[in-house]
């Protein structure tokens, strides 16, 4: 994927502009997602012209698995319902729990996996494909994918040149959410650079509230922290090399990134609960404690992808007034834009599974969830009108325009043993780093050892 995803200057500018735009807009996006307004504004799917032809599949039953629960599950089920309506197939949604690989693995051992899985990490896609567990997209699905997605997304869903996956849902992973009351009381503004962030954090801490809430109990929040810092500081080329383990984790660029990160993690008065407390805080709690008690909350800001909106909704804080968001500050030249996404793959060879993937690759499917909020699509043929307001329309357009200028979450692309499993690999090593931020060299060696084992090189 190196060649196609190298950042050109144009892309970089677009990225930087987008970062600010996206962050500002997302606060609104998220704000609207809890309300019913979005639904009313969205055109009913019935009135929309079908852009994709699907076969009749009366009487066929398929299972789809994803990690989604709660609102996400509800919205995705609506997408599946539309598919059922058009094809006559019965679709059952199966939440996999967080440990999707174990779940799918056990079902494959028994020879009856779900027909379609929405894998949360492309690294898992590659591993499953390597084991022969995935069925390639058929001609219709592949055609629909090529028609609607940029080359970067197609490549991310492929293994050794064979297309397997459709990136149905995309997340912005370069956002910092903050408690407006505390920022206001301490008199700090949204920082745009790492230095400004550290300075703001210091002022907030001096004011008397721990500045940053870190959900260190979940390793992925820490890999996201690192990736944002690294992408911004070392640049996209290095980022791609480290992603594929072409450069080692002992590389000086990693040293720099960890040192920069250590300037925040190394000062326990800046972290909610200190380093130990941060390691004990799971992601939802990290978001919750930043907003749960208004100005008496336990932290002033929290790094979190756009999905944090759900956790904030769980508190009394209102997104847009009590909780706002700014783009991850620039550590080097440009602010980073790291994305994640869920990729749909077929685990069984049947017409219904392929038809569903075809549908998920079409603008018709994306439109349904887009209208309900909490969703971004990289589908370039999705009419921006599908999003319920202008801000979201602009993010979507920019996402498609910047196309290959984004970088995909690094740990998600690594083999799961390194980048995607609780308690091991990068997740564990960065937790050790959070425990002891002074030991940059030691952590790098452990990261390199684990990476070498997982990448088998």
């Amino acid at each position, binding site marked *: 994927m190196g060649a196609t995803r190298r950042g050109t200057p144009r892309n970089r500018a677009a990225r930087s502009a987008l970062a600010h735009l996206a962050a500002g807009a997302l606060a609104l996006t998220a704000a609207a997602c809890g309300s019913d307004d979005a639904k009313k504004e969205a055109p009913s799917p019935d009135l929309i012209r079908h852009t994709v032809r699907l076969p009749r599949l009366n009487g066929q039953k398929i299972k789809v698995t994803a990690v989604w629960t709660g609102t996400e599950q509800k919205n995705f089920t609506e997408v599946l319902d539309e598919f059922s309506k058009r094809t006559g197939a019965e679709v059952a949604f199966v939440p996999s729990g967080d440990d999707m690989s174990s779940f799918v*693995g*056990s079902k494959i051992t028994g020879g009856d996996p779900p027909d379609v899985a929405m894998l949360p990490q492309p690294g898992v896609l590659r591993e499953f494909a390597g084991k022969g567990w995935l069925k390639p997209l058929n001609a219709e699905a592949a055609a629909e994918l090529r028609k609607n997605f940029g080359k970067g997304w197609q490549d991310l869903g492929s293994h050794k040149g064979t297309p397997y996956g459709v990136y149905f849902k995309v997340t912005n992973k370069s956002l910092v959410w903050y408690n407006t009351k505390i920022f206001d009381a301490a008199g700090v503004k949204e920082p745009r650079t790492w230095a400004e962030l550290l300075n703001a954090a210091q002022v907030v801490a001096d004011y*008397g509230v721990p500045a940053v809430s870190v959900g260190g109990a979940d390793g992925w929040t820490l890999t996201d922290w690192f990736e944002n810092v690294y992408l911004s500081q070392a640049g996209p080329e290095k980022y791609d090399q480290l992603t594929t383990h072409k450069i080692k984790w002992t590389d000086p660029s990693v040293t720099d990134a960890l040192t920069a990160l250590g300037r925040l993690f190394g000062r326990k008065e800046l972290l909610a609960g200190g380093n130990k407390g941060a390691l*004990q805080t*799971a992601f939802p709690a990290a978001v919750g*404690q930043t907003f749960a008690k208004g100005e008496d909350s336990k932290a002033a800001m929290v790094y979190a992808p756009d999905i944090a909106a759900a956790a904030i909704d769980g508190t009394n804080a209102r997104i847009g007034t009590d909780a706002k968001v700014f783009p991850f500050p620039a550590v080097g030249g440009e602010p980073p834009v790291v994305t994640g996404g869920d990729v749909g793959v077929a685990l069984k060879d049947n017409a219904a599974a392929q038809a569903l993937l075809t549908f998920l690759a079409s603008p018709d499917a994306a439109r349904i969830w887009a209208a309900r909020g909490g969703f971004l699509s990289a589908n370039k043929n999705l009419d921006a009108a599908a999003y319920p307001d202008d801000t979201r329309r602009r993010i979507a357009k920019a996402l498609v325009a910047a196309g290959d200028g984004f970088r995909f979450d690094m740990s998600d692309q690594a083999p799961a043993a390194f980048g995607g499993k609780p308690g091991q690999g990068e997740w564990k090593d960065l937790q050790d780093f959070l425990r002891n931020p002074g030991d940059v060299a030691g952590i790098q060696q452990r990261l390199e050892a684990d990476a070498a084992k997982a990448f088998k090189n």
Partner: protein
Amino acid sequence: MSTVSTRATRKGVVRTRPLVAAAFLLPALALLGALVVYPIGYSVHRSFFDASGNGFVGFDNYHEVFSDERIRTALKNNVVWVVVAPGLATALGLVFAVLTERVRWGTAFKLVVFMPMAISMLAAGIIFRLVYEQDPDRGVANAVWVGVHDTFAASAPYPGAHPRPDGGLAADPDGAFTTTSALRAGSPAPVPLVAVKPRYAKGERDAQPPRAEPGKVTGTVWLDFTRGGGGTPGRVDPGEKALSGVKVEAVRDGRTVASATTGADGTFTLPAAADGARLRLPAANFAERYRGAEWLGPTLVTPSIIGAYIWMWAGFAMVLIAAGLAGVPRELLEAARVDGANEWQVFRRVTVPLLAPVLGVVVITLVINVLKIFDLVYIIAPGSSLPDANVLALQLYQSSFGTAVNQGLGSAIAVLLLVLVLPVVIVNIRRIRKEGRR
């Protein structure tokens, strides 16, 4: 041998053709053979092959079981479980059984303690996730723990407050702060602090700059923070808040020569004796609010989950032991009491020896149960301490399925689990035979 053989000599009443006996046994033996016995053979066989199942690797998988760091943690934890959990549950069960024996509402108590046995490990796991929640405002374990802790520690006026790194005060190892330069009478000492929680600074008056007083040592302790980080560090800027009630001490050669408490405007006055000493702000001013124990942190996670397990299973031990107790001849106990033995002696010298066989059964049952522990660990341990809480059954699940799957390794762990319960099988069969002999 003899139990069963005594029964064997008891002629079957029904003189049957072997075919009829086979018909009665067939469903059971078929199910057991296919789903219990065959898997054992399969696992033993599979454990000698690699991840793909094609390459014979001999004992390599077993070697990995004992060399892989994660699996070794699992082994070590299983040992901890087996040593601690059954013994503790049995001991508690014994105590409860004996105590409830002569209390009229003992049955109600037994019901309460026994009840958790009826619920799933999953539900118990969710229950204890709530109990062990770190935040003392939400988790009951820490709420109690912090409550107890705070009863014995006076609350600090300004928890977490500290000077700026370059603020002229150095941190002592015990959490106190001492000025780097000596106090001088007539030359006021500014003592700037930051990071006072807003809640604590709210009611404070504006700070007064320290006034010089001849022959006395004076100074001001205040919150050196202006909104937005403005103002001059180390100077009392307008609007900066006084910190009242802070204890200050003048220390010379490690001895406290004078002490004072700041007033409402943050100022303090020390006698001339303080001249030349250093100013110390004792740690008691700043002690952070105690956050409680990290129940699910790397060090405590296994003991915490064992706690949840004991909550579930102490009732089992209690009920079995209580039943055993009911079978203890009253006369023996009474005789001992009449002979003047006190309750402890009766318990120690009569009850416990009489109960020994029951205690044995309880411990053995719990040991087997504990070796297979899975759900409770899987649900309670948070991701960050899952490796520290790892146990064999969990490792087996993760090695058998999941991405870095190696079913050869998974099978080797399965065989290891089986080998660990084997001695118990032997003890069990012996026990059954012995019981039959009586």
